[in-house]
């Protein structure tokens, strides 16, 4: 932008000088002026080319930077998407302790949240349909809190985590088979 302006200024100044020199026949001065004119035109052209190159380089750098950012963001998004496909941990009947097989998943979530301090998650606690709805709200909260404690112990800031218990109100699988019960006793990490 700036370079363009400079270029325009030069193009206006040069013809003005030429008009003033044309008052009498060609002389040494005139020839000198002509050479000077050619010289200054050459310099101007060179300068313009140089500045254009600079602009080009700047634009390229900016694009590269944006590209890098995009790639990083893509990576983050990809990582997030991947984590979101492993967002659920399951619990034993009436228990709220994190089972060893889910520690690796939760550690991945924790590392990701530590790296991306601007992101936050809601942990949903759920239960199977046995027991009363109110008791299950309490049990679901305990499960959510177990996940929260695990993430915090891995360094995630408490301001990044909220816990909501849905008790038995939102089963993942309906029915009363052991399979359904097991699928419903869960904690879910949801990115906000």
């Amino acid at each position, binding site marked *: 932008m700036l370079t363009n302006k400079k270029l325009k200024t030069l193009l206006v100044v040069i013809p003005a000088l030429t008009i003033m020199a044309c008052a009498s026949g060609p002389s040494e001065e005139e020839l000198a002026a002509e050479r000077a004119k050619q010289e200054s035109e050459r310099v101007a052209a060179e300068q313009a080319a140089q500045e254009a190159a600079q602009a080009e380089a700047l634009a390229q750098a900016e694009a590269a930077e944006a590209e890098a950012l995009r790639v990083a963001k893509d990576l983050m998004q990809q990582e997030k998407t991947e984590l979101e496909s492993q967002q659920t941990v399951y619990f034993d009947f009436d228990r709220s302790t994190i089972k060893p097989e889910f520690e690796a998943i939760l550690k991945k979530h924790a590392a990701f949240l530590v790296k991306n301090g601007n992101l936050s998650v809601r942990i949903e606690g759920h239960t199977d349909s*046995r*027991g009363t*709805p*109110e*008791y299950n*709200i*309490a049990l679901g909260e305990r499960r959510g809190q177990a996940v929260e404690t695990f993430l915090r112990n891995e360094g995630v800031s408490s301001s990044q985590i909220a816990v909501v218990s849905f008790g038995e*109100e939102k089963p993942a699988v309906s029915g009363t088979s052991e399979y359904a019960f097991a699928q419903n006793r869960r904690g879910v990490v949801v990115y906000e």
Partner: protein
Amino acid sequence: MKKRAYLITFIVGIFAFISTKTHAELEIVITEGVNNARPIAVVPFKWTGSSVLPEDITQVITNNLLRSGKFNPISLSDMPQFPTTETEINYRAWADIGIDTVITGSIEPVEGGQYRVQFQLIDVLRAQMTGGENSVLVDGRLIATKDHVLEDRAKNIRGEDFRQYAHIISDIVYEKLTGERGAFLTRIAYVVVKDRVSDRLPYQLVIADYDGANETRLLSSPEPLMSPSWSPDGNKLAYVSFENKRPQIFIQNIYTTERTLITSFDGINGSPVFSPDGEKLAMVLSKDGNPEIYVMDLATRQLERITRNRAIDTEPAWAPDGKTLTFTSERGGKAQIYKVDLKTKRARRLTFEGDRNLGAEITPDNANLVVVNQTQGNYHIARQQLSTGNMLVLTKTFLDESPSIAPNGSMIIYSTLHEGKQVLSLVSLDGRFKALLPATDGEVKSPSWSPFLL
């Protein structure tokens, strides 16, 4: 206001939409306990007009008496005659088939499109003894009495009040014959969960007459609704809504649909229950780390913390005098029922039978505790006598929860699993009468029985 309860259409809350009277979704199917009930005859009320009546009063009374678990109304085909008043009754004929109580009645058209409904409640055995014309000595003279006629009333009603008047007649009959107030003019609130995939607003808060008639939707939401509970004047419901992606306690006037947000703390906002005087709301909050029982003064919004324990404390229920609460606690390891004095905050364990006991309510006479008892993995409704501590399991259904007691203490409505679906179910306090209320669409849960409405 209350009298017109059936007629009012509820208007929009945030997620609610206007709902008209829907088709009766619940139907009562009696599964056990009619055979031992007292036989009675409800003779079809004679209609002297020519138009079609708005409602079959006799049928509503018959169903009420049957569903109380205390009476077994005989069928029309078993009736020896169809008298309209006591003077037409052949007492012998009724006594011969073992009927000692007969209800007769008639309906006449009157001015202004109203109806005159007259009914009599007749003690057949007494009439047989006196020949229908007893005489008593009054001031030294013999006076003829009709003491076999237990009730004789007449009232002019409007067409739209037929159902309600049938409930009133049922209440009168029930109280006269059992000595206990009838609860036919009551309602139930419950949560319906429609298909969560296809329905945009699957969670619905619904109110209906105690028998499932006049079903009206108060609120529909994309997120769960829980724990409806009636104010003692029958005008308001407290409930929990997740409509803002987290639990919040609301109180809603069911007639104006005006709604007030009561709590929105971090963590659990649950189990709201009005105190017997309607001035306080007991609830569960986990804002201080884990679920504790609180009581809120509704006028000042002041909260008082009642329990202080690292274990789960939940499911508060008021004693009829409003001075103590029962609640579920895991302080002893597994969930059991405790009672806490609101002044001293001292808690005492009440239940010891079975693996766990949850979700207690106290009967209106303060004599029994109704709980969800878990024994060997089975969840059943049970009743524990407070004076002796004796517990009696009342139900045989699967995954029973959320018991709520009728205001006269005769019946418990609860949620259970039937053919893979959550449905409402009834059991009498003595456990003899059992009924299912299957729904045509969706799962039905969290029933709450209203107080007396008249």
